[in-house]
C-alpha cells in the first residue's frame, strides 16, 4: 500500500513542479507591476504552439530561440498597447484587460499556428524509470519527463534568483515591487521594468509550455493549466517566488494523493459518477489554508494603518 502512495506522492510533486512553473510567471508579473495576469495560461499555450510548429521545420534549439524572440515581441506589444494606456488604473481593470489579452492570444495563436494537437519532442526517453524495486513490490515508477521538468524548473529558478540578486535590472525590479514611486524617483523607467517582467514571464511560459506540451501534446487545454496555478498562488502568496515553488509542490502532491486516497471514499459515500476531485481539491486546500493564514505561506503579514 505504501509503495503506490509514495509513487503517487512523487508523481504529484513532479506535477507540482509544473504548476510552480506556471505560477512563477504569475508571480513575476504581479510582483513587479501589481497586475494579476490572467493571460499567463494563454501565453503558455502560445509559447508551446510556437515551439511545436517551428520545431517541425527546424531543430528544436532554433525553434526555442525564435520562440524567445516571439515572446519578447509579444511582451513589448502588450506593454505598449495594453499596459501603458491603462497605467494607474485600478487592479481589477488591469485584470480584466489581461483576460482580454488572454482571449486575443488564444485566438491569435490558433489562427497563426492552427488548432490541432501538436507534439513537442524534447528528446527525453519516454520510458519510465523504476526505483526502490527492492523496497516495494514492483518498485516505484517515475516518469523521466517529469524529472526533466523538475530539472528545468530548478535551473529556471536558480537563473531567476541570480537575475534578481545580481543584475542591476533585477535589483530594479525588486525596488519596483516594493515601492512604485520610490523606484521611479531613482530613475528606473516603469515601462522598461514592465517590458522586462513580461518578457521574462514569456520565457518562463516557453519552459512551461514545452514541458506540458511534451507531456500532454500541444492543444488548447494547455491554457487551462493556468487555472491550476491559481491555488498555488494563494497558497504561496502572490509575491513570493519560493512560495510559488513550495505551493506548487504542496498542491501537486495534495491533489494526487486526494485523488487516490479520498476519491474512492467520496465516490462510495456520495454515489458519484467517477472521481475527478483534483479539479477542485487544490482550491479547497488553498481555501482552507487561507482561513488560517490569509497572507499565504510566504506573504508578509499586513498591518492595517488607520
Amino acid at each position, binding site marked *: 500500500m505504501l509503495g503506490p502512495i509514495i509513487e503517487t506522492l512523487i508523481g504529484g510533486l513532479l506535477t507540482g513542479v509544473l504548476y510552480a512553473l506556471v505560477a512563477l510567471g504569475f508571480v513575476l508579473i504581479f510582483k513587479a507591476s501589481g497586475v*494579476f495576469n490572467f493571460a499567463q495560461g494563454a501565453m503558455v499555450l502560445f509559447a508551446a504552439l510556437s515551439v511545436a510548429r517551428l520545431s517541425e521545420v527546424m531543430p528544436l534549439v532554433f525553434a526555442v530561440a525564435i520562440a524567445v524572440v516571439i515572446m519578447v515581441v509579444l511582451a513589448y506589444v502588450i506593454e505598449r*498597447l*495594453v499596459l501603458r*494606456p*491603462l497605467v494607474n*488604473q*485600478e*487592479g*481589477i*481593470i488591469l*485584470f*480584466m*484587460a489581461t*483576460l*482580454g*489579452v*488572454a*482571449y*486575443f*492570444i*488564444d*485566438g*491569435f495563436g*490558433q*489562427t497563426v499556428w492552427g*488548432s490541432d494537437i501538436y507534439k513537442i519532442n524534447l528528446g527525453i526517453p519516454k520510458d519510465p524509470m523504476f526505483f526502490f524495486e527492492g523496497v516495494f513490490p514492483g518498485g516505484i515508477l517515475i516518469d523521466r519527463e517529469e524529472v526533466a521538468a523538475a530539472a528545468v524548473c530548478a535551473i529556471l529558478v536558480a537563473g531567476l534568483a541570480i537575475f534578481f540578486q545580481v543584475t542591476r535590472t533585477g535589483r530594479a525590479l525588486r525596488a519596483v515591487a516594493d515601492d512604485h514611486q520610490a523606484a521611479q524617483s531613482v530613475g528606473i523607467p516603469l515601462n522598461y521594468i514592465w517590458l522586462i517582467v513580461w518578457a521574462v514571464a514569456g520565457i518562463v511560459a516557453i519552459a512551461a509550455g514545452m514541458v506540458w506540451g511534451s507531456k500532454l501534446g500541444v492543444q488548447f487545454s494547455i491554457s487551462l493549466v493556468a*487555472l491550476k496555478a*491559481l*491555488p498555488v*498562488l*494563494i497558497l504561496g502568496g*502572490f509575491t513570493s517566488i519560493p512560495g510559488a515553488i513550495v505551493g506548487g509542490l504542496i498542491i501537486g502532491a495534495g491533489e494526487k494523493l486526494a485523488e487516490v486516497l479520498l476519491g474512492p471514499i467520496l465516490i462510495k459515500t*456520495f*454515489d*458519484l*459518477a*467517477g*472521481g*475527478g*476531485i483534483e*479539479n*477542485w481539491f487544490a*482550491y*479547497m486546500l*488553498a*481555501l482552507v489554508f*487561507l*482561513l488560517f493564514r*490569509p497572507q*499565504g505561506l510566504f506573504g508578509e503579514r499586513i498591518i*492595517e494603518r*488607520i
Partner: protein
Amino acid sequence: MLYREAGQFKTSYQADQAIFPIAQDRWFVWGLVAFGFLVLPLFADQYLYTEVLIPVLILSLAAIGLNILTGYCGQLSLGTGGFMAVGAYAAYNLALRLPETNLIVVFLFAGLMAMAVGVLFGIPSLRIKGFYLAVATLASQFFLEWAFARVKWFTNYAPSGSVAVGKLELFGMPIQTPMEKYLFVLAIVVVMTLAAKNLIRGRLGRMWMATRDMDIAAEIIGIRPLYAKLSAFAVSSFFIGVSGALWAFLRLGSWEPLAFDINRSFQILFMVIIGGLGSLLGSFLGAAFIVLMPIFLNQLPGILGIPMSTALISHLEFMVFGAMIVFFLIVEPHGLARLWAIAKEKLRLWPFPY
C-alpha cells in the same frame, strides 16, 4: 439638450429620492418598458427571442447579481457560473420531485438555494480580499461544477449527465413559445431589477458601498463587515441563482454542467466590467454588448462576403472579442454606464460643456 428640468422641483423626500427624479428619464423608462411588453411582441421573430432578447435579459439578471457583490460591495467573484448552476439544479430538482410546485416558487427556491451556497462560499471574504478572494471564489466554481457532474442524485441518475425540463406553465398558462418565454423572463427581470434598485438605495446598499469604499470607516459607523459582506453574497447569489434557473429552464431546456462552467463566470464578469461596476444600467448594457457582439462577429464575414472556415471564424472571434475588451477598458474603464452617464450629463447641461 432634451432635458427641461427647470420647474421640476421636489416637495417631498419621496419624490426627491425617486429612482428617476427627472421627468424625462421617467417617461423614457416607462416608454421602454411599454415597448418591451407591448410593441416588441408585435414583430419579434423566434431568432430575436431565443438568441437575443431572452439571453440578454437572463444574463442581465446574473450581471446584476454579480454587480451587487463586486460593483457595490467590492468583493471580486469568479464563481458566478457555479452559483447559476446551483440555481439551475435546485430548480430542476424541485420541479422534478414536486411536480405540482408553482413555477414562481421553483425560481424562488432556486434563488434561495444559491443564496445559501453563496453565503457559505462568502465566508472566506472576511479574512481575504481582492484577488485572493477572486481565486478563492474559483474554488466554489470548480467544486460546484464537479458536484453537479458527479453527484448522480442532482441529475436524477441521468446516464448522459444531461437533464431536461418538462412543459412549463404558470397559473395554468403555458410558457412554451419564445414569445411566452420572453414575456415571462421580462416580467421577472423588471420586478427583480426594481427590488435590486430598492436594496441598493436603502440601508443595505449604503452598507455595501461603505464597505467597498472604506471598510475601516464603515466599521466605525457601526457596520459589521461580516454582515455587510455576507448580505452582499446572499443577495448577489439569489439573483444569480434565479438567473441560472431561468437560463436552464427558458433558454436551454436541457443542459449539462458545462453550461455553467468557468467561461460563464468570465462572461458575466465581462458584462459587469464592460457595462460598468456599480451600475444596474451597466448590467443591462454589458449583457447586451456581450451577447450581441459574437452574433455580430459571426455575421460579419457573411456580410462582407469573405468565405471563412468556421474554425477560423471562431478564432477570429476570440481575437476580436479580446481586443474589444482591451479597447473598451482603455477608452472607458468605468464601462458603458459611465459613457451613458457622461452623455446624459452633457444633454442636461447642453449647450454648456460642464
